């Protein structure tokens, strides 16, 4: 990563690939309690992105209650009694579980990584943003509403062609610039590429409630 890019807080797409490999190694070693990040190739096999899926979050929210589709037809339908036997135990989940998928995808126009995420319950039903917000820790919600650089929008996933939430990248280069300038160690040792994603995720993760362990930053 040339110093010019560094100075602007951006990185090239090849550098993103390098940063991603270093990041995966680092993460999977240090954060074994989290699911691992993997590198996924797009269907063209040329570009790739980082993926962390099925991250489980026990939610304190209550069960939805009825099934997700309201409508008179559904509930009033008479089902024939189906055979059940005594050897069957039916689960009752005391806590509502939410699953999160996170993707880190390189954005060509802003030249920075972008965090895409989506959440769903155990039936696979996607969660609305206000439900996701309830899962976020208090400091995240504050970060989201305070900062002019961080806001969440919903856009089509560049490879999966479905709406995902994303942290809008328009402010990323600004605060990455600040991060790199503020940390002399980073600037001097010149291993900025390898640490780009860790540094980036330490800010972004803060916004979505994903705490990055300090050990990851200590790679130097």
């Amino acid at each position, binding site marked *: 990563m040339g110093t010019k890019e560094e100075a602007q807080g951006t990185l090239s797409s090849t550098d993103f690939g390098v940063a991603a490999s270093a990041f995966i190694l680092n993460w999977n070693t240090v954060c074994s309690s989290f699911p691992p990040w993997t590198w996924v190739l797009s269907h063209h096999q040329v570009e790739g992105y980082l993926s962390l899926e099925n991250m489980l979050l026990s939610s304190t929210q209550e069960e939805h209650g009825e*099934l997700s589709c309201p409508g008179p037809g559904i509930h009033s339908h008479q089902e024939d009694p189906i055979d059940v036997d005594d050897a069957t135990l039916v*689960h009752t989940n005391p806590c509502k579980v939410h699953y999160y998928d996170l993707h880190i995808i390189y954005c060509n126009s802003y030249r920075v990584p972008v965090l895409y995420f989506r959440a769903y319950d*155990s039936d696979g039903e*996607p969660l609305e943003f206000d439900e996701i917000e309830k899962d976020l820790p208090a400091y995240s919600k504050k970060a989201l509403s305070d900062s002019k650089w961080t806001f969440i929008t919903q856009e089509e996933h560049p490879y999966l062609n479905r*709406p995902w939430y994303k942290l809008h990248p328009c402010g990323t280069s600004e605060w990455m610039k600040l991060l790199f300038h503020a940390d002399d160690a980073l600037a001097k040792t010149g291993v900025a590429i390898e640490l780009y994603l860790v540094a980036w995720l330490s800010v972004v993760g803060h916004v979505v409630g994903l705490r990055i362990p300090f050990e990851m930053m200590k790679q130097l």
Partner: protein
Amino acid sequence: MASESIVVFAQFQSAVDEGFWHRLSSLKLNKLGIDDSPIPITGFYAPCSHPQVSNHLTLLAESLPSESNEQSSTAATSGGNRNRCPVPGILYNTNTIESFHALDKKSLLKAEAKKIWDDIHSGKAVEDSAVLSRFLLISFADLKKWTFHYWFAFPALVLDPPATLVDLKRASQYFSLEEAKSVSVACNEWRNSSLTADVPFFLVCIDPNSLATVKHIKDWETCQSDGNKLLFGFYDPCHLPNNPGWPLRNFLALISVRWNLKSVRFLCYRENRGFADLGLSLVGEALITVPQGWRDHQCLPNAVGWEQSKGRQVSRCISLAKSMDPTRLAISAADLNLKLMRWRALPSLNLNALSSMKCLLLGAGTLGCQVARMLMAWGVRKITLVDNGRVAMSNPLRQSLYTLDDCLNGGEYKATAAVKSLGRIFPAVDAEGVVMAIPMPGHPVPSQEEDNVLEDCRRLHDLVDSHDAVFLLTDTRESRWLPTLLCANTNKITITAALGFDSFLVMRHGAGPFSSNDERQRLGCYFCSDVVAPIDSTANRTLDQQCTVTRPGLAPIASALAVELLVGILHHPHGIFADGELANSSSSGSSELPLGVLPHQIRGSLSQFSQMTLVGQSSNSCTACSSTVVSEYRERGMEFIIQAINHPTYLEDLTGLTELMKSASSFKLDWDNDDDVDDDDCVEI
């Protein structure tokens, strides 16, 4: 554990990823059509990896056969890995909700159970043990509402009498320390090898030296030495400490039929952080009483396995409208766009006012089409277009809502075609078309037509009444008269756009004459600077003058400015009463407003690439918006209108313009208008 208790198995739980439904919809729309023959699919599961949450049998987009392939074999098709053990299944997707509910669930379950039974007897289940967890899915995909009804069944052969549980404890409590270490190592090796990672049933063989090896179940013979401990292991999705998972049911059936064992020691294999977790895993012993007739292949045992939802025997339903319905996606994308504008640049943007505003567009030609598009871009959803013309062959080039198809067979009515076109651009628009001519002064009405004209006048009155803003986008001066009067009468926001060959005028009318109690000077309307009433401007003109020629760039510019002017009014604290500001002015008002200056009139010239702003006050002699005229209309209504239409000098007489002209000419003053634009020639294509 009392030896009399039966083994109670935790039911398999399903989880369907959104991608599966997307793929199924696509398959249904593009390939299957109404074909509802069963589709082989692949489910995926992995051993439990969390102490409080069970793992699920998951369906993903990859679970369905790819669209380009032909039918794949009944065996598990998609490749697996350690986190995705593939399991074969079958999908019955119906074409209606009625047929979904009418499916014979008993016999479908029986059919799948029979496949498992056959695989057990033929030995296939020993070779490819994943078939023991074969499953069934019935569904109905409602592709209009984007809701999916579905129900899983995990067929389990019922032991009758049921297996009894001798004991069940944590694996770490059952094994000795040495055994536990060895078992963990062996299991982790099994899980890490790509050859065996996705094989969900296996044997754990522990020799007298506590050395454990994990083997394929087909190698059962080799584990038969004395002194060896043998456990039947399987990937257990369940996390519960007192119950083994569902796959054990058919495993026990297999063991009983193939090897005729009465006592079975089993290992419910569970993990944590990717490694064997013997604290979470369970080891138990079950006693099987082989039911009569089980050795006989022909005698199919009963089966259970329809998934329960929250303790009830019902199908499930999921709605994906928000992420699949194109109209909803279009709406949220449009909203997002405007919100971004507000977040990033214009925090005071009033999106609610824009989306609730009702706009009336008089004229659906070059100006009307462009204004409609610009309004939609600003988030306006309610648009009414009035035009009595049909789309002509030359129109699509300059009138951006029409295409060649609209010109065929004599041409569609513009108002109708425009509405259809708007709906194709943005499905959530609430657009209405009115095919109607606007009555005009100077175009006298024969008495047999009078009723129709009166009807049109009333209709126009009602249209103006029921909208919040009116755009005058017609192609003659005189056609703007009646709308101006009606708007002045009801104090509606009115915006006029008019084109010359290479120049344009865009202006907002001032407030109506009776709109406020104070006597402050109102801004003028389109007619305020006239000295003659609107007359028939189209008679006695050559063809090219009638059919207006304007430089093509004018209409888009003028239309865009007209809409921006409206947005400016909407965001101005005084609205329609706002004073006219000049560009580059240093008046305090403009610096406060985030949208900038709010002019009264904008006149532009393409030949100069220039634009200027003007302010004009209302005239007491105005033939359209003066208090004289408006009160006359209020008193006499349609009678007054007809009179004005039929007698061109009536308005001038009424407003005293005639007198003014007389006295003016007697003083020989030069009344030449020094405007760049000659209003008499303002026509549009």
